[in-house]
């Protein structure tokens, strides 16, 4: 298994290490629910160094990326971040990524750990124009500091006024505890917070500095278990679940990140066709009425007929309910429709509810 630079610290902190797509990472330290709640009410620190980083730089960087992704990156200001799916010609999703724009000639792409190699090859094969494409994943470590207390904690370690960094914006050269970092106001929890990119060599030092700085504010280290329940409540998609090679971003409810009116991009034709013909499937949220926890892959039925399957499901620590997201035939109302979830061969009642389950508290 691959280890992040902070691996030893996770073990010292009592982290329960699991194999996450080939990475040895902590699923929890004290407990998933406790860590989850702490992020919602105070702050949590995540080691997300497994995420992939790819640089695209050169004369044609902007047009190369514009042709690869479904969102529009033309005209975005410098130091802005754009979220976008990246599709195959058939409209299936290669990955979803964050695009950090330094200039029209320099971009940093943040991709899912398990997709890094695939994305890197895809981008290289489909890059039309002049630019260097470099996989720099091994030289970066990434920390996520998330929760309502995040800004106050991080501010203790830097002279840069963090309130200057707006939602989905970044600063490329912030000194935190003397460590040079890229700092963005982004995250995967539904809370305000930052993602911090540093040299791998500085990772342990910064991890410890931030934990120390936040001790009195209730900051705790948080594992992958709570990372998943937090993103789930905020209905943020996870590759391999809500989106995949077999699901289009339109079906997954990401149409605001798909600009069908922009010039040619990979997947455009297929997505335009889907839109015109009407989507066959849509993503819906649901809440269990009967006792049971829905899990990824469970079948969804209406009057005994299969209409789809669960993409993610969990007990929701914030809401105290058993909730799920499912990809279902379109035509099922997104609110108050009665559906059944097949759990261990029994049809248990659920009803559809609007997404997200948890309303984001982003600082804009």
């Amino acid at each position, binding site marked *: 298994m691959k280890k992040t630079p902070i691996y030893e610290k996770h073990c010292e902190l009592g982290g329960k290490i699991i194999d996450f797509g080939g990475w040895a990472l902590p699923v929890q330290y004290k407990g998933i629910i406790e860590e989850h709640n702490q992020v919602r009410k105070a702050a949590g620190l995540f080691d997300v160094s497994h995420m992939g980083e790819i640089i695209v730089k050169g004369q044609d960087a902007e047009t190369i990326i514009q042709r690869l992704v479904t969102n529009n990156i033309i005209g975005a200001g410098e130091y802005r971040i754009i979220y976008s799916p990246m599709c195959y010609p058939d409209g299936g999703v290669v990955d979803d990524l964050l695009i950090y724009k330094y200039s029209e000639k320099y971009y940093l792409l943040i991709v899912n750990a398990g997709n890094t190699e695939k994305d890197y090859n895809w981008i290289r094969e489909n890059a039309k124009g002049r630019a260097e494409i470099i996989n720099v994943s091994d030289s970066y470590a990434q920390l996520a500091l998330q929760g309502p207390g995040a800004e106050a904690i991080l501010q203790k370690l830097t002279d840069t006024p963090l309130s200057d960094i707006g939602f989905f914006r970044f600063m490329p050269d912030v000194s935190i505890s003397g460590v040079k970092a890229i700092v963005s106001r982004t995250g995967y929890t539904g809370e305000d917070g930052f993602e911090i990119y540093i040299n791998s060599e500085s990772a342990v030092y910064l991890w410890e500095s931030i934990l120390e700085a936040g001790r009195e504010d209730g900051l705790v280290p948080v594992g992958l278990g709570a990372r998943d329940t937090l993103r789930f409540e905020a209905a943020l998609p996870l590759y391999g679940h809500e989106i995949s090679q077999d699901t289009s971003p339109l079906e997954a409810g990401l149409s605001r990140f798909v600009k069908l009116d922009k010039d040619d991009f990979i997947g455009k034709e297929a997505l335009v066709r889907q839109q015109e013909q009407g989507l066959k499937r849509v993503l819906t949220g649901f809440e269990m009425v009967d006792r049971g926890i829905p*899990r990824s892959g469970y079948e969804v039925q209406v009057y005994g007929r299969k209409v789809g399957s669960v993409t993610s499901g*969990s007990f929701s620590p914030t809401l105290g309910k058993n909730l799920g997201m499912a990809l279902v035939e379109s035509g099922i109302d997104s609110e108050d429709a009665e559906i059944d979830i097949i759990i261990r061969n029994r049809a248990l009642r659920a009803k559809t509810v609007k997404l997200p389950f948890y309303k984001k508290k982003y600082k804009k």
Partner: protein
Amino acid sequence: MKTVEGLKYSKEHEWVKVDGNKAYIGITDHAQNSLGEIVFVELPETGAELNSGDVLGVVESVKAASDVYTPVSGVVAEVNEELEESPEKINEAPYESWIAVLELSDLSELDKLLDAGEYEKYCKEEA
């Protein structure tokens, strides 16, 4: 890892407390610890006839659902309904949080189970 003297243990990490021809069955401290916070318990039906190795119930943590197997055969005489409301009791007090009581149909099956010392040794070897 905690064990309790006088209980019987299975290699699937269930404990059995024998009382005459009845057996209380739950999951061990080791099992609850590796599962993490338990948020859901599915109990068997009273009156159900189970063979050793059958699914007695299901415990679910935040991350995953795990079957609980009965290490002994018998008829379900009683289920611990309190766990439906408070599944976290299994984390807090695993050896008090029995899932079901079985009326045993074959007392000789108890001989195949481990005692506390043997079970601790088994867990160490497994790790």
